[in-house]
């Protein structure tokens, strides 16, 4: 079972790195946000898979913090433009 989990974590790492190309290309800020969100979710998946595989249960707590921070980051990104528009 640990082999499967580590292999799955590696596949997830590969997809999240590939997804970052969208953050590089854009073209709109929304696309970059989406790429960052995919990276956050894949990162949570990697942590959840690695926790039992390498015997570090605390990684699940790290994934919990990742989930919280990803939500806050997306909300901050989307509200930033609105605040700037109101001030202008």
């Amino acid at each position, binding site marked *: *079972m640990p082999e*499967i*989990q580590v292999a*799955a974590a590696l*596949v*997830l790492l590969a*997809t*999240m790195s*590939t*997804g970052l*190309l*969208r953050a590089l290309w*854009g*073209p*709109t*800020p*929304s*696309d970059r*946000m*989406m*790429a960052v*969100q*995919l990276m956050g*979710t*894949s990162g*949570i*998946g990697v942590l*959840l*898979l690695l926790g*039992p595989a390498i015997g570090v*249960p605390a990684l*699940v*707590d790290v*994934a*919990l913090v990742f*989930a*919280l921070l*990803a*939500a806050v980051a*997306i*909300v901050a990104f*989307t*509200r930033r*433009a609105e605040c700037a528009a109101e001030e202008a």
Partner: protein
Amino acid sequence: MSLLEGISAALIGLGLFFFIAGTVGLLRLPDPLSRLHALTKADNLGLSLVVLGLLPHTGGLLPGAKLVLVWLLVLAAGATAAHLVAKRTLRGDGEDAR
């Protein structure tokens, strides 16, 4: 490999399929809203299936409950984020200034 491990591996594999499909969609689809559609599939189904595949091997109620908590949090955050990003896209923020 026991039956439970087989089911678990199949669920994790299915989750990975959705993550791969979501990434391909994010890279290949033509406009932001359809890319958002691909992304939410990866977020919700992909992570849900991975968590479901991991659940039988947590070995206890509390670790399992924590996994489910992460899952629910990602579901709620993903839905909220998708709405916010879609709203911002519809309001028409154009391309980056270069």
